[in-house]
């Protein structure tokens, strides 16, 4: 047994309202850069729907993930190592920009520059790839809220698997949202596909990262990842992916997507797993046994033997304790309500989902029956084949039994807790009917419904004795970096060349630029206002007082200690 720790996430799909806040904040944090315009490390898909990139789940087409060869051994679906190398010059299964979407902006300037004319000027969309005018016909969430679903949803690869006779009549339509980030798999096929060995799994917390200095842009990882969560930065020619916000995780903060989640549906915590058992578990022959295999790889953090082994492999004591309090472990193995996304890809994904009960609840309440009654709900779960089969294709390789079990537990929690909330005698037969105890159901309710911040996120910070090596803890002056704070700019090979800049330095530069730039952020025709927090109290900085008559702007009276280039914000 080789115990390793893994930072994992669970998302409670019942609570997702599809607001895309996670996507937007993630994009603002990580991918608001040239070359990454089309990239969403976090995206929210409406299901049924094609997803992003389009039909990425159709592995017969995209060849992502692992499969078993004739001898029952794990191999990359896209081909073995030699084939991988032979197809390096033109990666045949890589989605094109059209499969994601062509990013665009609008020429807003026309709105103010257009000459006097009969019709109101409009801002036309301009492609960020070609720079030319374009007509928008697809985006990362084009089929949001089932938009155009009669036309688009039939090509949802998951829906196609469910059954041939599924008709997407609107009366039968069900819908839920699926937020997706990188799965930070235990058996990552992206890393296995990388010819350069640039993609690695951090041995401390299992976060999968791309070494930007080692990546050579062979693009094999894009094909290798069945979730299509590795993106090619077309400006720098390097692969980039969700980082699980490691700079935040290292200091004990949840990821940006989780922190900003309006529905508070994300859970982050540690799980301990047996690294030696991963390969065997991923090689189980029957797709439908993969769920159990994956559950069994995770180790019980309360088991004394596991604790002993964990300590032996150098996992710090407070990490073990965090693993014991982990909401992830509880949701996966204690309450058994969380399921992995597409276990049949055999990558052992570590972002799990609690399937949504709401399609079932909605269906029951539409009939006028009591949608909180466990009997009604249980009957509906059995009766409503389409949602259950669909969820099963997503989470259990098509096996409906585990999905039904999870939905029943959620339904049982609903009706059991209703009795308590209404002050009625709790009906202990309800939890018993799903193999739980009342106490357990209450704990689950606490975790899922109340979802306190400190119960949702149990993130042990990285260790202080390692802090010096951590990028974001500025234990040494972050400006002492090669090239110094004056770095800005790029090397002689155009942008993207030169050494990587620490995030702290980048932030420093961005802030400085925003505050001192002469363009839009600093309109010439507007007065400046002084940031008093940065004023040292000496002298008269520019903009503190309105310009004296006859004294041109830009030539204020200066006194000692005044920094004319100091931080000033433009007036809105």
């Amino acid at each position, binding site marked *: 047994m080789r115990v390793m720790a893994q930072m994992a996430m669970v998302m409670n799909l019942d609570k997702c309202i599809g607001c895309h806040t996670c996507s937007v904040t993630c994009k603002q944090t990580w991918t608001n850069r040239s070359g990454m315009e089309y990239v969403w490390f976090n995206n929210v898909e409406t299901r049924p729907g094609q997803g992003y990139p389009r039909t990425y789940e159709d592995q017969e087409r995209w060849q992502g993930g692992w499969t078993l060869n004739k001898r029952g051994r794990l191999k990359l679906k896209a081909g073995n190592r030699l084939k991988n190398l032979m197809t390096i010059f033109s990666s045949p299964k890589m989605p094109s920009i059209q499969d994601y979407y062509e990013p665009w902006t609008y020429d807003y300037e026309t709105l103010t520059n257009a000459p006097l004319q009969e019709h109101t000027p409009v801002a036309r969309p301009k492609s960020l790839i070609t*720079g030319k005018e374009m007509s928008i016909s697809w985006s990362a969430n084009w089929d949001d809220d089932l938009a155009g679903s009669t036309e688009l949803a039939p090509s949802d690869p998951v829906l196609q698997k469910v059954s041939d006779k599924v008709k997407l009549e609107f009366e039968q339509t069900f819908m839920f949202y699926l937020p997706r980030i990188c799965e930070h798999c235990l058996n990552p096929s992206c890393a296995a596909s990388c010819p350069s*060995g640039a993609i690695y799994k951090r*041995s401390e917390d299992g976060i999968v990262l791309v070494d930007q200095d080692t990546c050579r842009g062979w693009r094999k990882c894009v094909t290798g990842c069945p979730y299509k969560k590795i993106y090619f930065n077309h400006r720098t020619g390097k692969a980039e992916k969700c980082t699980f916000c490691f700079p935040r995780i290292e200091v004990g903060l949840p990821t940006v997507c989780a922190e900003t989640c309006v529905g508070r549906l994300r859970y982050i915590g540690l799980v301990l797993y047996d690294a030696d058992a991963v390969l065997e578990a991923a090689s189980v022959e029957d797709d439908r046994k993969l769920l159990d295999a994956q559950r069994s790889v995770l180790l019980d953090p309360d088991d004394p033997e596991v604790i002993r082994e964990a300590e032996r492999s150098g996992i710090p004591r407070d990490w073990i304790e965090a693993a014991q309090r982990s909401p992830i472990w509880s949701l996966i193995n204690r309450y058994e309500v969380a399921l992995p996304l597409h276990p049949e890809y055999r990558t052992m994904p570590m972002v799990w989902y609690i399937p949504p009960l709401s399609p079932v609840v909605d269906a029951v309440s539409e009939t006028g029956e009591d949608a909180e009654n466990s009997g009604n709900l249980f009957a509906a779960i059995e009766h409503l084949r389409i949602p259950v089969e669909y969820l099963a294709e997503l989470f259990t390789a098509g096996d409906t039994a585990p999905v039904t079990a999870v939905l029943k537990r959620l339904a049982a929690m609903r009706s059991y807790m209703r009795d308590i909330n209404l002050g009625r005698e709790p009906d202990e037969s309800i939890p018993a009917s799903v193999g739980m105890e009342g106490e357990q159901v209450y704990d689950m309710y606490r975790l899922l419904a109340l979802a306190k911040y400190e119960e949702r996120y149990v993130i042990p910070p990285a260790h202080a004795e*390692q802090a010096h090596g951590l990028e974001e803890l500025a234990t040494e002056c972050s400006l002492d970096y090669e090239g110094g704070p004056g770095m800005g700019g790029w090397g002689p090979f155009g942008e993207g060349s030169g050494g990587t800049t620490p995030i702290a330095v980048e932030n420093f530069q961005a802030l400085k630029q925003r505050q001192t730039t002469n363009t839009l952020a600093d309109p010439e025709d507007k007065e400046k206002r002084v940031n008093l927090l940065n004023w040292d109290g000496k002298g008269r900085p520019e903009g503190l007082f309105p310009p004296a008559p006859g004294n041109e702007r830009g030539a204020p009276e200066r006194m000692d200690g005044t920094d004319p280039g100091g931080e000033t914000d433009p007036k809105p």
Partner: protein
Amino acid sequence: MTTTLDLVLWVVVPYACLAVFAVGHYWRYRYDKFGWTTLSSQLYESRLLRWGSPLFHFGILAVFLGHVMGLGIPKSWTAAVGVSEALYHVMAVGVGAVAGFCTVVGMAILIYRRRTVGPVFSATTRMDKLMYLVLAIVILLGLANTVVGNIVGHYDYREGVSVWFRGVFLFDLHPALMAEAPFTFQAHGLTAMLLFALWPFTRLVHVFSVPVGYLWRPYIVYRSREDRLGGQAPRRGWDRVGARYRR
């Protein structure tokens, strides 16, 4: 008799270019690992790339191996293992023509693609354009050599250019041999040297990243946070307790 010009062209220039090549790569790798990439444009366009890129790359790999054979291995060695002049000739011209043809066709597709596909063209830097120009000239001159050396006239490069080329690395200089070579051979050699000098400053550096190690390394790479994170080693005097000496 070697003139000063011959000395400059066939001794000074080659050494200068090769020095730039070697030192340039070392410097680029030290300074610009982040910029060391193939800079693939497949995301923008893959229909033309699908044909052009493999044709060009496999072609140029074969051409490279041909050069290793032709320039690197002395005539006496091949003769010693019983390869007759005629056999070698047929082999070299046959394989060389196929490889050269693939390379040129692939390159034509790739250049056409680069010029006509909007996003690809706008992602092309000035350095790329210069590199494409020089590379195209080198390849076309190389192809011309096959014609000039075998069909139009006859020039046995294995007793001329090859000896000079090996001499450059063995410090056994024969500028006179190059001075006697047909013009296309001289031009091919010189432009190739120019290409070598440009090499470290272009995207061609990806040639040195051929990931052969992929065939043997374990599928999943684990890395510890401590030694790599932050991209910088601790400053001198700030090593953690127990850290080993960096030598």
